[in-house]
């Protein structure tokens, strides 16, 4: 019997998710022995032309990390969808847009204009790349840079979701082992813990508490104690974030930034967490509310760091 075929692709991503596949350590050897890896640009030599040669639904599992932000990525993920029986989104970018999704606060023109004309290190008279460039030998092409960053499920149907930035290797190994054993749950399904980060966090709360001031890490240092970071006044997204990471950040004195996404019964995580913030902070008057908001210098980057494209607003409203 032939081994199941597995493809791994990265769209707009940093490579961290691929690294975490390798970080499954010795489990990767068992998985690699049980499947045939037929496409994995970061690790093995296959070309896009090889993908075209597969029959429809010939690939048993395709794992895609990264957001979709240009025409090439859209083309490849749609091609992979056609060639695959099952698609899994790996990491915050594919699941919900991720950090590159913060670009949804700007138009494509604003992005390109700054990056290729105005940064301090840009050569004078530089121009943004064009989708077609004539040379004396032939025309060079580049993908079209979209106005909006998309999460993977906004572009193609996705059966499984493994969130995290990066996703914990333990969850990747779990998903791959379930796949090899033919025991994946009915789709769509998230591979996460069934509690919140707080349930995995060793820090302690004293009970019901109020936050008098939201503290920035630039100006305040967490106490050398086991006290809950949220109770100390640091915006820790642990209560609103599914477990599965082992509370790595709070254990290292850093508030949870919410990379494991949201629980499935929540529509908009940022909006949901604003109600948490409001219930913890005793602001009643308009001035008190303004003071509280001033203490949070980047509300979008804090509450929508990993899911702006899949939030209700999706980003800045753009005309084109």
């Amino acid at each position, binding site marked *: 019997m032939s081994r199941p075929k597995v493809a791994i692709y990265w769209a707009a991503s*940093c490579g961290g998710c691929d690294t975490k596949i390798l970080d499954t350590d010795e489990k990767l050897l068992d998985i690699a022995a049980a499947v045939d890896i037929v496409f994995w640009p*970061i690790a093995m030599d296959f070309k896009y032309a090889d993908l075209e040669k597969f029959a429809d639904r010939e690939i048993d599992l395709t794992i895609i990390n990264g957001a979709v932000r240009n025409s090439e990525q859209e083309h490849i993920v749609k091609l992979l969808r056609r060639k695959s029986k099952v698609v899994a989104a790996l990491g915050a970018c594919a699941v919900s847009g991720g950090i*590159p999704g*913060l670009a949804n606060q700007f138009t494509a023109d604003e992005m390109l204009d700054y990056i290729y004309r105005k940064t301090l290190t840009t050569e004078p008279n530089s121009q943004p790349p064009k989708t077609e460039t004539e040379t004396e030998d032939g025309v060079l092409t580049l993908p079209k840079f979209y106005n909006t960053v998309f999460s993977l499920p906004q572009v193609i149907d996705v059966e499984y979701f493994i969130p995290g930035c990066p996703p914990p290797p333990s969850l990747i190994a779990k998903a791959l082992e379930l796949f090899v054993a033919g025991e994946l749950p009915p789709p769509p399904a998230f591979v996460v813990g069934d509690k919140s980060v707080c349930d995995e966090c060793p820090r302690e709360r004293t009970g019901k508490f109020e936050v008098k001031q939201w503290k920035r*890490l630039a100006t305040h240092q967490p106490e050398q104690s086991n006290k809950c970071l949220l109770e100390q006044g640091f915006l820790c997204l642990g209560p609103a974030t599914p477990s599965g990471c082992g509370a790595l950040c709070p254990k290292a004195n850093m508030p949870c930034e919410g990379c494991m996404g949201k629980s499935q019964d929540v529509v908009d995580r940022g909006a949901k967490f604003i109600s948490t913030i409001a219930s913890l902070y005793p602001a009643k008057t308009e001035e008190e509310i303004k003071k509280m908001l001033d203490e949070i210098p980047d509300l979008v980057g804090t509450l929508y760091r990993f899911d702006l494209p899949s939030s209700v607003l999706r980003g800045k409203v753009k005309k084109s």
Partner: protein
Amino acid sequence: MKRITIDPVTRLEGHGKIEIFLDENGDVKTAFFQVPELRGFEKFCQGRPVEELARLMPRI
């Protein structure tokens, strides 16, 4: 004129594409390396709290 396209460049961290044009003798005449990817951290990190950049930039 023969044209060789290597797409994608594999086994590296990042996205790349190479176009090579050969002359009549089969020698390389011109070659182009292209990066068909941009996320734009240069722009969307602007204005964010400085302490958060240490958590945003590792994802570049």
